[in-house]
């Protein structure tokens, strides 16, 4: 009898325990898992937002790099963490749009196992050419590809990356496969383009921006829907007759079933952080536009991305297992 009474008393208590926990959130340092190695674009974005986030939440935001397997190792870890808002993930196009189509034995579901909180930034890809290659526009590129007996070579940061998939699509549109030269990361690929070993490259804007500004490579086309404000002189693929829009993206996500107050608080803080002049300026410097989506919109965005990339991954022939 006493036991049941205690249980009866405890039941409503536990029902309000979750919102209470959310009110007390964050009670301890927050772990922000970055599924890539330190120093890359994903890591930079995480560090840029971690500093103001930490200030606003009053708890340290500790970045934990968990690189490996197309960003799936770190993402799997975040999916399995306790949904108390103390473990977050820097989700991105690799972990939540391409890898799910690429890896057959993935141990997480990009939608069901996560709470998607906010889109941080969108970056277009850009086709760049060695300045001595004589390719300034997509028309030049198409002509050179047609006239060359062996077709054109184009470098990318790696097989299965969004930049590689862009090359596959372009080849389909041109009616002739472009010879894809994969590298380990954007840095070595850019070196090869600057050195003239490969005439063209499909790269994400953040890693290419400095080289375009310095004139060591020439921007041929941007993969965004509209011209990029930082590079208004570079025409989009669509403007040049190639109906193709791709963006790589970075967001903040957590494990599934995060308490609603935590999600709301994070989304609100991030919205304010992303509108800070300093953050906007930094994002613009390496070519990204800050994202502005509500948690529900961001979740729908991830679902749309998943659906859009799956067929391209299949067509690219990239197959890890």
């Amino acid at each position, binding site marked *: 009898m006493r036991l049941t009474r205690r249980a009866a008393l405890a039941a409503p208590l536990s029902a309000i325990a979750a919102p209470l926990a959310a009110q007390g959130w964050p009670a301890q340092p927050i772990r922000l898992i970055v599924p890539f190695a*330190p*120093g890359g674009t994903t890591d*930079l974005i995480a*560090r840029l937002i971690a500093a103001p986030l930490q200030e606003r939440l009053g708890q340290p935001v500790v970045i934990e790099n968990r690189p490996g397997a197309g960003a799936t190792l770190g993402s799997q870890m975040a999916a399995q963490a306790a949904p108390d808002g103390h473990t977050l993930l820097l989700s991105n196009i690799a972990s939540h749009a391409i890898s799910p189509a690429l890896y057959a034995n993935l141990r997480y579901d990009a939608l069901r196992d996560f709470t998607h909180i906010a889109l941080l930034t969108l970056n277009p890809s850009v086709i760049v050419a060695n300045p001595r290659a004589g390719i300034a526009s997509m028309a030049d590129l198409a002509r050179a590809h047609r006239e060359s007996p062996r077709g054109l070579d184009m470098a990318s940061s790696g097989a299965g990356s969004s930049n590689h998939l862009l090359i596959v699509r372009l080849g389909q549109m041109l009616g002739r496969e472009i010879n894809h030269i994969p590298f380990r990361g954007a840095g070595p690929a850019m070196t090869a383009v600057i050195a003239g070993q490969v005439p063209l490259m499909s790269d994400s804007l953040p890693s290419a921006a400095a080289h375009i500004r310095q004139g060591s490579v020439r921007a041929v086309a941007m993969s965004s829907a509209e011209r990029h404000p930082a590079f208004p002189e570079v025409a989009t693929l669509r403007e040049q007759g190639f109906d193709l829009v791709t963006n790589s993206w970075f967001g903040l996500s957590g494990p599934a079933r995060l308490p609603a107050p935590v999600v709301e608080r994070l989304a609100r803080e991030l919205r304010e952080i992303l509108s800070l002049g300093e953050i906007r300026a930094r994002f613009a410097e390496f070519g990204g536009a800050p994202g502005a989506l509500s948690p529900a919109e961001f979740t729908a965005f991830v679902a749309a991305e998943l659906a859009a990339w799956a067929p391209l991954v299949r067509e690219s022939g990239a*197959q890890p297992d």
Partner: protein
Amino acid sequence: MELLLSNLAHGFGVALSLQNLTFALLGALIGTAIGVLPGIGPVATISLLLPITFGLPATTAIIMLAGIFYGAQYGGSTTSILLNLPGEVSSVVTTLEGYKMARNGRAGAALAIAAIGSFFAGSVATILVAASGPLLTQVALSFGPADYFSLMLLGLIIACVLAQGSVVKAIGMVVLGVALGLVGTDVQTGQQRFTFGIPELSDGIGFVPIAMGMFGIAEIILNLERPEARSVLKSKVGSLWLTRQEWLRATPSVLRGTVVGSFLGILPGGGASLAAFGSYMMERKVSRGRHEFGKGAIEGVAGPEAANNAAAQTSFIPLLTLGIPSNAVMALMVGALIIQGIQPGPRMVEAQPDLFWGLIASMWVGNLMLLVINLPLIGMWVKLLQVPYKFLYPSILVFCCIGVYSLNNNVFDVYMTVLFTVFGYMCNKLRLEPAPMLIGFVLGPMMEEHLRRAMLLSRGDWMVFVQRPISATMLGIAAFALVLMALPNIRKGKDQALAG
């Protein structure tokens, strides 16, 4: 020349400010400490310390991070020599002769020549960075995939040819190393190879678990097996300074190491490890003490140590002149610069003269500091060998575990280390040299990547390897080395057969 001097003077003005000096010293100290702690490398440390640099001015931040980087090169040689524990690729080579020297009671001399050789090479390389960085970059850029492949093929052939003991066993170990290096995601198709569905293997086997397991921890187990070896090491600490004879032998090696290291450091993707291997191979072939290799030849410490430090400095060249990081540490530097709002690239020299020349001047200042820090410490490090083994070994094992775990914050790497420890122990019992395997492990995947890229670009035409002058030269030297080695080996083989 005048312009260079005035630029350098400007740089020293920046580097010698109290704040920058303090942070250079701090970086050098941290670097030395993490170099001495097995397994905790500069990549992990710099990424941990990156947030601290946000509040610092850009130049100061980079000066400190650079100090950590070359401080680690100095510190890394200490554990390699004393404990046979290489924390990084570049210090594997130092274990080969350095640890033997320590066992012969010449630990002090080995540590001293490592520090002095590093300082000399670092100074020369710094001048090189200042004087001809942009020019050297152009040379490095002319290396295409075919040239890289031929260069690495040459490296592997020399590794087989120069191995101690049985050539057949050495070839076997090189091939095994290459095979282990191929584990992971295929660069071209994204296909997983030899991963058995283990996600942690999809990025390949880490270098540190292999090196640490096969060299360091396996050695600890072997030492526990033979108590008499421990007492020998304990009683024979020996003189801390170099003898006249050692100076005479080490000096040319340092000079050669500096040249090899300075050049190989500039190559994108090359860096300190390739430089150390390159110099070691060269010393085995050309130095006066080549007959003592394997028994503790000072040339085998002096050359590679000079080379890896020279390369550590010159690997800044692609970053500073092209904005392209040549290794993981440099990638972190790019990150640190971008967070500071500076885009590394060709324009950096003009846009950020304080940063560019200040960094170069601080490299030299940092090297001098490291020499001053390290020489007096040699006595202390050598005393480390007198620490009772029951205290020393457990603490080494703990530090190894922490270091390996910190690589990817993943316990999987610790298991891999255990696996390779067992394998390393078996290899020792079977008299199989781990060094050729490690060379194969490092060079194999790079070679494959360049070979396939060269093939992709030439649409499968093998002639590309002899049509390119750099590649053709490398292949020519490789063929020559094979022939040269075959001749005395035939003779030696006959001699052994007769004697046996």
